């Protein structure tokens, strides 16, 4: 065949027939797999992700933690590990806790981060507190699908989970096919470290991208960062929107939350397999899995039936209930939809006391 630029030759007629083709295919696959695996191993975690510096800290201090809190932003902005440790110390239960929360994590992303943490060398966790997952398929598909962060959690396991959920999803088939395609594509991008070459080279050359948390901050706060200390455009907009109409808006949102909390899910679309796999992986690492609901401003209608059905290892403490914890839903304790430092400290004390009571 003619070749452009004559950079390759148009020689050979029937090169590699029969056995030759098998050798060629195997050689190609081996070459591809080796370089892809090397690239995967060398690809740094996304630099805009709070989990990345936290993982680096845990690698450096694997023996400094025995209790882990993991979940979305309402975990990140709510658990103050030094406060939790102080309360538990006073209750005669010394603990060294760590906040592994990060903004905007989907359940699959949390699961992926959790598995990565559990695989760290030398880390011996006693308890892992996990934000109770809903495994809602669609929640993992949003405008962030094209980001490095989203690609990062598309391990073969998570992609398979997403595809399995297709069967149960109550959506038009076209949407399902589109969603499946997006996850398959991200799985491919991750497996091949697509477009990560420059980051790999920069990382190998010792270049460090700016991270959302410094190691000193993590030393001090153990993974917590107060919502009011975040100086990004997005955070400022969030705060402005909240403050604009806070006096009327917050009570209204709280009333709405109370009403929506009464709705109970029938769990017909719940991925119990994913939940069981998560429990297994935590237990296999020698830790006890515990679930909870952080002081978020949204309902979690799947939690009560999960607990009542005996699917969870514990009766999860629920903190998105303004009637039970009114002090966490006031202007004094909220910065935007998240708690402020003061609110986080109040919450951490309540949570630590709950932990101690459960242990008793």
């Amino acid at each position, binding site marked *: *065949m003619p*070749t452009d630029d004559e950079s390759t030759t148009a020689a050979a007629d029937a090169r*590699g027939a029969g056995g030759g083709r098998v050798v060629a295919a195997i050689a190609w696959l081996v070459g591809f797999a080796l*370089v892809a695996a090397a690239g995967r191993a060398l690809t740094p975690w996304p630099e805009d992700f709070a989990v990345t510096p936290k993982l680096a800290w845990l690698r450096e201090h694997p023996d400094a933690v025995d209790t882990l809190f993991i979940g979305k932003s309402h975990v990140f902005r709510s658990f103050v590990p030094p406060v939790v440790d102080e309360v538990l110390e006073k209750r005669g239960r010394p603990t060294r806790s760590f906040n592994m929360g990060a903004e905007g994590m989907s359940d699959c992303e949390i699961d992926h981060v959790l598995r990565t943490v559990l695989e760290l060398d030398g880390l011996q966790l006693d308890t892992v507190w996990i934000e109770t997952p809903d495994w809602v398929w669609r929640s993992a598909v949003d405008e962030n699908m094209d980001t490095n962060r989203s690609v990062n959690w598309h391990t073969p396991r998570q992609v398979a989970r997403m595809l399995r959920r297709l069967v149960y999803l109550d959506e038009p088939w076209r949407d399902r096919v589109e969603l499946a395609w997006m996850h398959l*594509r991200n799985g491919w991008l991750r497996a091949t470290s*697509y477009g990560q070459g420059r980051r790999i080279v920069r990382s190998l050359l010792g270049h460090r991208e700016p991270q959302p948390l410094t190691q000193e901050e993590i030393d001090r706060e153990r993974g917590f960062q107060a919502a009011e200390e975040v100086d990004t455009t997005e955070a400022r907009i969030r705060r402005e929107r909240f403050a604009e109409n806070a006096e009327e808006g917050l009570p209204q949102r709280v009333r709405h939350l109370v009403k929506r909390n009464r709705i109970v899910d029938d769990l017909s679309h719940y991925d119990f397999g994913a939940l069981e796999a998560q429990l297994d992986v935590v237990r296999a690492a020698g830790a006890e899995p515990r679930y909870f609901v952080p002081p978020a401003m949204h309902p979690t209608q799947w939690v009560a039936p999960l607990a009542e059905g005996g699917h969870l290892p514990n009766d999860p403490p629920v903190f998105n209930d303004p009637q039970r914890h009114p002090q966490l839903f006031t202007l004094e304790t909220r910065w935007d939809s998240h708690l402020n430092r003061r609110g986080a400290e109040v919450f951490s004390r309540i949570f630590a006391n709950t932990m101690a009571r459960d242990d008793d």
Partner: protein
Amino acid sequence: MLFTEFRYLAFFLVAFAVHWGLKRDGARKNWLLLCSYVFYGAWDWRFCSLILLSTFIDYNCGRMLVRPDQATRRRLWVTLSVCANLGLLGFFKYYNFFVESGEGLFTWLGLDFPARTLDIVLPVGISFYTFQTLSYTIDIYRGNLRPVTSLRDFALFVGFFPQLVAGPIVRAVDFLPQLSVPRRLAGVDVRACLTLFLIGFVKKACVSDNLAVVVDEYFASPAAYDVVSSWQATFYYAVQIYCDFSGYSDMAIASAGLLGYELCINFRFPFFATNIGDFWRRWHVSLSSWLRDYLYIPLGGNRGSRPFTYRNLTLTLVLCGFWHGAGWNYIVFGALHAAAVIARVEWRAHRNATDASRPLADLVGVLLTFWFFAGTLIVFRPSGLAPTLEALRAYALLDTAGTLRLETGFAWLFPALAVVHLLAWRRTFATAWERAPTWVAYGVLGAGSALALQFAARDYQPFLYFQF
């Protein structure tokens, strides 16, 4: 669906596997035709009807052109084919340009212009397949080709997906005979095809798409940058365009090759051209040779006085520029190249060079040709009049008030690409590569593919030539 997308990989694997899995050649052609329409429909299925229309018109014109009782009407049929094809192209691609230009002229004269612009979407690849079908009827008219008897074969020639949307512009005389000979997988040089596809992917995804970011940054506000940045961005743009288009051609040729079909060469190391005439014999060869055979030579070529030849050259190159897009910038681009070709002819007629000065003259020629071509790309790029003039002033007159400096992270690319290009041109590793044991060659290809994916630009950039 871009050749660098994961979607295309999945699509091609299915197309390839079913194609070679089918026993009968007719079934294979049916399958490829179906794949081609699916491929084209992935952009906008409505435009499949346009290809169908073009296919039917030219298929029937082709048959009518050889009917004994139609001998006196042959000119009519070929005119119908030319008008239908150019009419479709003219409407979808140039209608708004002519209306806007007419409106501008009438307004300048203080008159009202009767027509209005329409909301027309340019069908992807229309310039490519229009020229392909035109070559079919014109070749039959000239007696160089027998009309094809199978509508399916002709439809496949027009719609064959590897070359459908961005060329190379395949001549009927080259492609149709391949459809009458059954394809054999054993006849496919898989190693060469995979190598070529990988080279094309690297050019497009790793070089062109990465350069696009810097180039776009400069051309967004050229007045803000200094002269060094102006040269840097202009050279980057030349490399970007080259890698984009030749990369696409490589992947198209390789995809077709894997399916057992040969497509023509589209680039012959254009950046090693020693003059602008030589450049056009190396750049987008399928278009330049099409224009030579179906426009320049019928116009009279160089078989006349010098002014006559210059008129033909100018017409051909201006139309070549205009083929690229409906804008005055493309016409100016073509005119600049025509002026350069004419200047070169004049200079050659009066110079007194000896053989001893040849290597140095060639080197100077290569550098000058590249510099000129890159400069004309400033006009080619649709940035608007003011930014274009700013960029030209900085590039050609070294005059700008800008002080910003572009990122120099890609500067190493130039010597690296020059060396690779030189090695490829001299075929330094070609023999070794051909003789390499199967497991070594495919192992390297696999590793190279994985590495290419890692260094691809993160976001897919549409191919620049799709807009043409």
